[in-house]
């Protein structure tokens, strides 16, 4: 091992790796020209690596990062099955994941010894890459609360298996999982690196069940972002819950203190759905029909009752013939809070493609839908039941994968780990 590889002590007395730190300081220095005092002031509070790495999203806090964080451009989502029979092994895994997450979100490798006689602890492909706003969000599926680990009495009522819903065409190999990991970053290699290393840390304790890459965000979770388009070419999710709206987050996203399971206070539930779009068929539908199905114009994304994207849709408006301007079966009507007793979701989906369907040679592509919420039984399930029954979009989509995870609250700091109060 050369000296460059050795952890070194910097001025603030905390360890870092010279190569990473050197690169990071270069960037931070450029940004903070004329303001060196600012950087040093920050250093005393947090580790210098944390303060120096550009585009870093803090990992610790009341809520897990990756939910109300402005949506990054790339996603890797993985579900794991626990293969170990021992509850302590699962706890150790979650501890190892928490430690690895702290390293990775700071642009550092998975920690530990570098010994030429054994495989490196970090797989290495993210060496030299900035975290690019990396967030890692970890959760528990309903199946983790079966009779294997004695957790049944700690299962929140809201963590129910999703019922069968109209329009389901679920592939068991893309459905469910004991543990869920969402890695989001603006750099796809950084996000992949997380799941690869988590899978490696899990060997002997948990095995990958399914994995989904998302190549482009389809949601905006902050007012600082513009609404991206889905693969149907439409702006979808204009009325999403935004990070700046603390009241909406409290009302619709974060589990409150009065929840049936105290360990979930500050957490949220993720419903993920792999929604394949039959885009070749969609591409043959007329523009006016496409707009009727969504209830929005394709170019501006304005509701058919308005002119600009953020004009609120007027669901009661009628045209000259007395027919509703926004079709009774239009997507935005059926998904609107007004139609769903005020229920909203924080959507955080990504476009995906898994290449070509071998049976048809048509594109296997669509939306990997992710929605965070307080209680799927009162949010996702009734909304999707309504959509699955009536939405004219159903002709062009198939729900091919599904899972629900309880995402526990954020970690307080190093030494805390995912689900610590649940396992103790």
């Amino acid at each position: 091992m050369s000296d460059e590889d050795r952890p070194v002590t910097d001025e603030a007395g905390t360890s870092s790796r010279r190569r990473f730190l050197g690169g990071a300081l270069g960037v931070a220095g450029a940004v903070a020209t004329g303001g060196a005092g600012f950087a040093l002031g920050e250093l005393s509070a947090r580790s210098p690596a944390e303060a120096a790495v550009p585009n870093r999203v803090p990992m610790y806090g009341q809520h897990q990062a990756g939910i109300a964080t402005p949506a990054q451009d790339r996603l890797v989502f993985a579900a794991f099955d626990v293969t170990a029979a021992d509850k302590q092994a699962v706890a150790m895994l979650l501890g190892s994941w928490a430690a690895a997450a702290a390293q990775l979100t700071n642009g550092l490798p998975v920690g530990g010894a570098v010994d030429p006689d054994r495989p490196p602890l970090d797989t290495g492909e993210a060496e030299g890459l900035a975290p690019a706003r990396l967030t890692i969000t970890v959760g528990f599926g309903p199946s983790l609360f079966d009779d294997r680990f004695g957790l049944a009495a700690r299962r929140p009522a809201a963590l129910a298996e999703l019922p069968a819903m109209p329009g389901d065409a679920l592939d068991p190999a893309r459905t469910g999982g004991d543990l869920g990991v969402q890695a989001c970053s603006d750099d796809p290699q950084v996000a992949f690196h997380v799941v690869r290393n988590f899978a490696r840390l899990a060997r002997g304790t948990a095995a990958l069940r399914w994995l989904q890459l998302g190549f482009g965000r389809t949601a905006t979770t902050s007012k600082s972002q513009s609404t991206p388009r889905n693969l149907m070419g439409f702006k979808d999710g204009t009325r999403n819950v935004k990070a700046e709206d603390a009241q909406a987050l409290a009302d619709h996203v974060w589990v409150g203190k009065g929840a049936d399971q105290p360990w979930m206070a500050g957490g949220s539930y993720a419903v993920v759905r792999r929604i394949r779009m039959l885009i070749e068929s969609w591409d043959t539908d007329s523009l006016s029909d496409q707009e009727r199905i969504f209830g929005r114009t394709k170019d501006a994304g304005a509701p058919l009752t308005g002119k600009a994207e953020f004009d609120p849709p007027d669901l009661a408006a009628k045209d000259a013939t007395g027919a509703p301007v926004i079709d009774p079966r239009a997507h935005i009507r059926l998904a609107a809070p007004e139609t769903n007793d005020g229920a909203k979701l924080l959507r955080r989906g990504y476009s995906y493609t898994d290449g070509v369907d071998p049976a048809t040679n048509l594109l296997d592509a669509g939306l990997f839908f992710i929605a965070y919420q307080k209680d799927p039984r009162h949010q996702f399930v009734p909304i999707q039941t309504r959509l699955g029954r009536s939405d004219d979009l159903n002709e062009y989509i198939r729900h091919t994968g599904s899972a629900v995870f309880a995402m526990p609250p954020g970690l307080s700091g190093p030494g805390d780990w995912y689900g610590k109060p649940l396992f103790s």
Partner: protein
Amino acid sequence: MPLPSVRRLVVAATALAVAGGLSACGSDSDTNSGSAGPASSAASDPHALSVTVSAASGCTPDKTTLAAGAITIKVTNKDATGVSEIELLGGERIIGEKENLPPGFSGDFTVEVEAGTYTLYCPGAQPEKTTLTVTGAASTSAADTSTSALLDKGTKQWGEYVETQVGYLVEGAQTLATALKGTDLAAAQTAYKKSRVYYERIEPVAESFASGKQDLDADIDAREGDVPAAEWRGFHRIEKGLFADKKLAGLSKFGDELVTNTTKLKTLTTGLSYKPFELANGAQELLDEVSASKITGEEERYSHIDLLDVQGNVEGAEQAFADLQPGLAKIDPALASSVSTQFAALNALVDKYRSKTEPSGFKLYSELTNTDRKALAAAVKAVQEPLSRVASKVTH
């Protein structure tokens, strides 16, 4: 023919480790944050060391002087996300260690130390090394159980195992060659299935003799397409004749060559000595064989007896590990027991597919579902991950 069971060797090795006074200390626990300081009750015990690992202070022992004999080292990782293990070094050699210790958890390990100077090494911590002094004399246990003597003995056992397997391999090849000269296709197929496993148990040893144009492994075990068609010979050429073409004609010369080449292997391996890390790497290579070509069903693409090969690879890997285990248990009992536990789980899974009616002793691989194959792949990886750390432990 009956073979010495590898399971028996593993049991014997475990018994030895326990008799040697080594606690198999797999005790890990999560700790409440904030109460991670050294336990005060043990502070005065010269045979107990409590170490706290933290981001701010690195690796901090509660004392730096200990008494010779058995020492229990309790380690608590308070909040150091970049540190996951701690080692006790005597010179450059690892005396004992605790791995996989994320922040919020604690664990312990036990070592036997004589008087002298030792280093507590927490890779990645700041500071990462602390010097410990051990005084007095240990109440001596059996002298011949020193780590290097145990490892040495293990490599000799492996050498004997390899010689035994290669002996059976030559016999199996001879039986197969004879059958290929006859007219009974079914008998030849059975002879093929019965001859395979001996090679699969020791394949990395054969692979180590590849040099230049000489490649004994290819001559014995190349699959179709691995080598130019004109040079293709060995087991799988015979397999194709017996199971795809279903004809004995033309196979006789391949049988004779197989006898020649396996006999050559026997000559090369007789009296060969091995180093401990070679056993660790050999075990890993055997499991790589399982991952790379058996799980996919590519190895025995005509006869579908891949599960027998899997069992052979696993048994050979487990044998190599069992030979290292008594020495490794002195260095890192938790790692030794982790590999051993995962081998047991893998064996249990492979045993599920035993068949009384198949000549290979196992279900045909083509009968396995994708779920079966996934479970097998995960169980192999579960052994490989801890096993990949063994070579570095037994090197010094």
